[in-house]
């Protein structure tokens, strides 16, 4: 969780230098879900993701340097500079790609689950999606297929309440919960808040175990919050599209801060770990920026 936060904050602070020349959707505030899942997933499990994929990539164990190189548009990047921030991949850890089109990776991850079922192995496929993706037809088609064909797929829906700047008002009926709608499709489905770590982590653990042992699909809706703007390195609260009180309250419940406090109580050396992560992140950026300088010289030549 800390690694993701450090990387994202560092991208945010360096983004205006103009070296990361691609649409970049930061995950600050939404780190908890992939961080918690990383405890329960192995490299044999697959995952696919969305336009906001950095946290999912890092949580799955993806190579941070190759991700940064990709965002910097370098040949050393995980997608050789062809994809950018929204198209990350690391086959070695089962992270099979992320897509910039809302809902696009949902059936792909479902198909990966089908492959695992045919393989007869224990692994599962994790499909990350946001709350707006459930409005796409392909979501309904995919979960119907997963439920009908009994595929080991875990759909992880991070509900941050907004599709870019649009709240739920024009998008979904007020009395309907996403996770309840999904239940109607025949999948086991739960809702949990990332601000409530005590129930959050066990819920994800149980969901992974359910897909793994029962070889069935499950949907988990996670209440979360994006702290920065939809796309880019800054905040956008001056646009007043979100309720300022709710945003402030969510930030005071920051899952990362909660987790750190819990670890402090347990006597974990937080400062040392943070320092290690901090140096790893600066070293990674330094390496990638040195590659960037070489590439820039070549490009000019």
């Amino acid at each position, binding site marked *: 969780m800390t690694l993701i936060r450090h990387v994202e904050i560092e991208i945010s602070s360096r983004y205006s230098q103009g070296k990361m020349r691609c649409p970049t959707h930061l995950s600050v505030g939404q780190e908890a879900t992939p961080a918690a899942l990383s405890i329960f997933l192995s490299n044999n499990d*697959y995952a*696919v993701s969305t336009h906001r994929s950095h946290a999912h990539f890092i949580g799955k164990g993806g190579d941070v340097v190759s991700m940064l190189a990709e965002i910097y548009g370098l040949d050393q*990047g*995980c*997608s*050789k*500079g*062809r*994809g950018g921030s929204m*198209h990350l*991949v690391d*086959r070695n850890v089962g992270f*099979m*790609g992320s*897509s910039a*089109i809302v809902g*696009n*990776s*949902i*059936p*792909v*991850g*479902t*198909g*990966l*689950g*089908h*492959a*695992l079922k*045919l*393989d007869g192995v224990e692994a599962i*496929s994790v499909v990350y999606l946001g709350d707006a993706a459930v409005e796409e*037809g*392909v979501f309904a*088609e*995919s979960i*119907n*297929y997963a439920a*009908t064909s009994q595929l080991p797929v875990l759909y992880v829906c991070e509900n941050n309440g907004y599709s870019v700047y649009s709240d739920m008002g024009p998008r979904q009926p007020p009395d309907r919960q996403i996770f309840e709608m999904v239940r109607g499709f025949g999948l086991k489905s739960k809702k949990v808040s990332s601000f409530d770590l005590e129930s959050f982590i066990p819920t994800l653990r149980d969901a992974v175990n359910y897909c793994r042992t029962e070889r069935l699909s499950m949907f988990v809706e996670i209440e979360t919050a994006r702290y920065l703007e939809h796309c880019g390195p800054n905040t956008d609260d001056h646009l007043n599209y979100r309720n300022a009180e709710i945003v402030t309250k969510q930030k005071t419940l920051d899952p990362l801060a909660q987790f750190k406090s819990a670890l402090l109580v347990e006597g974990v050396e937080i400062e040392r770990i943070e320092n290690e992560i901090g140096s790893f992140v600066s070293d990674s950026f330094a390496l990638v920026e040195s590659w960037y300088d070489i590439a820039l010289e070549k490009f000019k030549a």
Partner: protein
Amino acid sequence: MNAKVLGSEAIRLGIAEMMNSDPKVLTYGLGVNDPGRIFGTTEGLVEEFGPKRVFETPTSELALTGVGVGLALGGYKVIHSHQRMDFSLLAMDQLVNSAAKWRFMFGDQFKIPYLVRMIIGRGWGQGPTHSQNFESWLAHVPGLRVIVPASAQDMFDCITSLRDTAEPIVVIEHRWLHGVSGELSTDVANDLSNLASIKHSHTVQPRLRIVTWGLETYDSLAAQSEFSRLDIPVEVLQIRELNDSSLEEAASLPESIEAVIVVAGSWGIASFADSVIARIAQGNGIHLKVGRVSHPDAPEPTALHQLTAYHVSRWRILKAGFQLLGIKENVISEAPQDQPGGNRFGPF
């Protein structure tokens, strides 16, 4: 094996060949296991290979295209069938943004052995939404291979192209070709990474070249016979894959050629047919006479009497050839063709 088979049987044999030689090959789509078996092209497959490898799906063209990409990423090879190309329009996001991109946008580290059959309907009142051929749209998308078989051999080869393909394949399979029989050799020593064009020629000094593909190959060959009856030497260049190298082949002309007609069973505006003409013009300047025979710029009507002069026919090709070569010959006016040959295909 060498035998004379129907086009539908050649497809079936191609799928069976793939499934026999590789346990990771799967076949699915609406109708693969129903009593019709996609016009007989999947007959006997589920019995031979079992329901885990040959299966029906929900009516979800979009998701099942993405599922095909996921299966391909997970090590499987997929043959997905649509009984009409019109139905596959629901699948375009997954075809264009997933299947055609997953290899490129992740730095060529994946192969996408996903093959989708799109069947074109014609006759018996197929009408505006059971007859559409969007070959030019699909040829326009980088990252997709678009294969347009005509003969039984082409049918077999296009399916077995799945074996080594790096990119997803769209097979544009005309319903009428299921009933055309031809020689088939199932020895698969050919290089199927790019299906080269075939030249059908009776002469070394052709005056006219017809460039065509798919079903219209047969109209073109029929027109070639009519021309030869009038001692007009014509060669037919049959394209099998709609891509840049077939444009090069089409534009590489013998010196004796005076005119080129491109014949396509789809609409002409912004078409692959016009790309052929553009490529020829780029290579030969504007000296060459060129023509195109294709659908008029209108959806296909259902009623038979409204179909006059809608589809490509040998007579329309002849007429175009006479015009380009400055020959004054009358062309027989014709009734619209509702069925291939003497066979009845209704209700499909």
